[in-house]
């Protein structure tokens, strides 16, 4: 390794590689959360979104009642824990495809907190959008249908402005029918509307978005892990030719490849969260981009594998495969495709504009 490369890698990436291994306490929290989500948010609720065309309101009440959106916020805003806990929470929620705007609210709050555009109102469902020009005009918002608050990141010549809107001021959102009705897309127009609050942040766009991208990566990692888990269970259950189909290498090697993709996404996501939560957050931006890219790939690949392993059943409405496939396809492109995130990660590493 060259001296320069060594300097880049030693110590600065994470404060401690040990942070990547969850403490017993964190592991326990993650387990509790996972159990709670698995029990409290059955996939039938996701399915119900197809009938109503949107999310049931009850799901948000459950999510906000448990104060999940406060996890990882500053104590001054009533928060507790760090972004590492947020990531564990969202991964567990992603595994069961929670059909409430939890991810969107967390991304919104994390971005406001990052830029200091207060107040933070974790009890209100919210969503995040990135304007593609200097004005917050027409905004396509993932999981924005129930949002009461909309956080918009507007790129400036130097740094960004983060503005918070009351969606009641924006006029009714256009609702779009999308492949994943459990996370519906809304279109808002924030062109002429005064924000509730706003703050300028001199850091580059990707640095300001780093916590939100990490949250998104955690959600997608969860979706990937959930799909893999179902695929493995089916492979252990289904028999053909007198044995479990998981005994066939064509099946098990495919699943092993997905497992590697999930672990890669999980490790990068955790590394990004640890870096951003720590005192020297310099590498957090790069890691958040890599995590988002890896998690997008893992979610799409795992849900494809699930469809394939289920055979003809994977093509039915009754099977859960399409729920994972839809979730992965619709969420993965948000905040930049995998290819775009890899490109931006290189720019972040080299300290040049993306």
């Amino acid at each position: 390794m060259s001296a320069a490369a060594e300097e880049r890698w030693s110590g600065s990436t994470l404060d401690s590689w040990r942070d990547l291994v969850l403490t017993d306490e964190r592991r326990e929290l993650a387990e509790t959360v996972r159990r709670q989500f698995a029990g409290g948010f059955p996939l039938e609720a996701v399915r119900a979104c197809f009938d109503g065309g949107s999310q049931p309101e009850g799901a948000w009440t459950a999510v906000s009642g448990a104060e999940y959106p406060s996890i990882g916020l500053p104590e001054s805003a009533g928060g507790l824990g760090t972004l590492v806990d947020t990531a564990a929470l969202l991964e567990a929620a992603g595994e069961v495809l929670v059909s409430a705007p939890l991810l969107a609210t967390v991304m919104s709050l994390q971005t406001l907190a990052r830029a200091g555009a207060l107040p933070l109102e974790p009890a209100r469902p919210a969503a995040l959008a990135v304007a593609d020009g200097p004005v917050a005009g027409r905004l396509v918002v993932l999981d924005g249908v129930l949002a009461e608050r909309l956080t918009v990141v507007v790129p400036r010549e130097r740094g960004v402005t983060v503005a918070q809107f009351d969606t009641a001021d924006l006029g009714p959102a256009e609702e779009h029918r999308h492949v994943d009705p459990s996370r519906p897309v809304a279109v808002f127009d924030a062109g002429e509307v005064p924000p509730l609050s706003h703050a300028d942040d001199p850091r580059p766009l990707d640095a300001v978005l780093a916590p939100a991208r990490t949250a998104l990566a955690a959600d997608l990692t969860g979706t990937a892990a959930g799909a893999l888990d179902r695929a493995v269970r089916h492979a252990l259950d289904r028999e053909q030719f007198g044995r479990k189909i998981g005994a066939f290498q064509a099946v098990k090697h495919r699943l092993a490849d997905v497992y590697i993709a999930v672990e890669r996404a999980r490790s990068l996501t955790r590394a990004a969260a640890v870096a951003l939560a720590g005192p020297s957050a310099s590498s957090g931006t790069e890691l958040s981009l890599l995590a988002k890219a890896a998690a997008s790939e893992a979610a799409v690949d795992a849900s494809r594998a699930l469809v394939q392993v289920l055979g003809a059943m994977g093509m039915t409405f009754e099977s859960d495969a399409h729920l994972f496939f839809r979730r992965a396809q619709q969420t993965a492109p948000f905040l930049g495709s995998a290819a775009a995130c890899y490109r931006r990660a290189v720019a972040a590493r080299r300290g040049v504009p993306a």
Partner: protein
Amino acid sequence: MDFQETAEHSAIREAVASIGAAFGHGYFAACAREKRFADELWAAVFDSGFGAVNLPERYGGGGGGVHETAIVIEELAAQGCPLIHLIVAGMCGPIIDEFGTEEQKERWLPGLAAGTVKMAFAITESEAGSNAPNLSTTARRDGAGWVLKGAKQYITNMDVADAVLVVARTGTDDRGRGLLTMFIVDTGAEGLEYRPIPMEIKEPDQQFSVYLDDVAVPRERLVGGVPDQGLRQVFSGLNPERVNVAAQANGLSRYFIGKAVGYARERNVWGRPIGAHQGVAHPLAEVKIRLELARLMTHKAAWLFDRRLPEVGEAAAVAKLAAADTALAAFDQAVQVHGGNAFASEYGIGDLWGLTRLMRSAPVSREMVLNHVTQHSLGLPRSY
């Protein structure tokens, strides 16, 4: 449509396969190590009448076309004997037959058909590879004859060739493009020198740099007798060259798959043959499928060429790309299946990497085939 091979073609296949098997890859590899042409194999192929199946019978050839040549080349490669010179020969003879004067045909074709005369083909230069017509070797008139000046590179088998077909520039057309002319130049001509290029291709056929320093070439050595016809002549040789390279790649795929399958049946690691593991078997099945697709396309291209149908351009390019990619995949899987043994010379796999890999780059690269398809098959704008 008929996919059954004729009895005559099957007979050629069998006979050539048995010649190849009698020599085997061990012989081929030994010639490569000793850096000598595979004279014995060459003679055996020609003495049995398979060396020039594509040349007219009245010159001693087989009276067939590219289809027959491709069969011969594929079968030898499938036995581990992928001779490059068969591809060069598959190009030179037909060019003289199609464009040469009566006198040139009488002078050269009988020897080429018997295998006693060899001819190299020289178009590539340091600044003219994929863009071959952009060459700078010149031929200028000198009295009744011509004088050639320039340099060529990667010319196969100059050391064993009696003559070389040299493509030279004889002028410029009104759009500024070079007018090309082909000459039959003796390899021993005064002013002509060649030097071997050390290659990572373990082959009995060696590659050379060729220097033409005011080489005098008599008038009767100008192919067809009329200058500035070279581009058309070169183009007529490209399609059979692509089909023959595809056939050689297909033969190599068969060789690699055969080796891998044999090993996968025999080798026991956990109490049963490794071929019983899907992780080993499925990739082999995949290359087998790709091989069958590539062979179909190669047959189609040969069939189109022999009927002088214009669709051959696309078919030959597609066959070449598909066959070359498949051969490399088959090579890779044969290496994987053989574990550490793949790297021991006696297993006859590793030494074929250079030639197999070459097929993606020459005589026409993968990218140039994709250019052809984007432009001519899909009608997209020219990109270069």
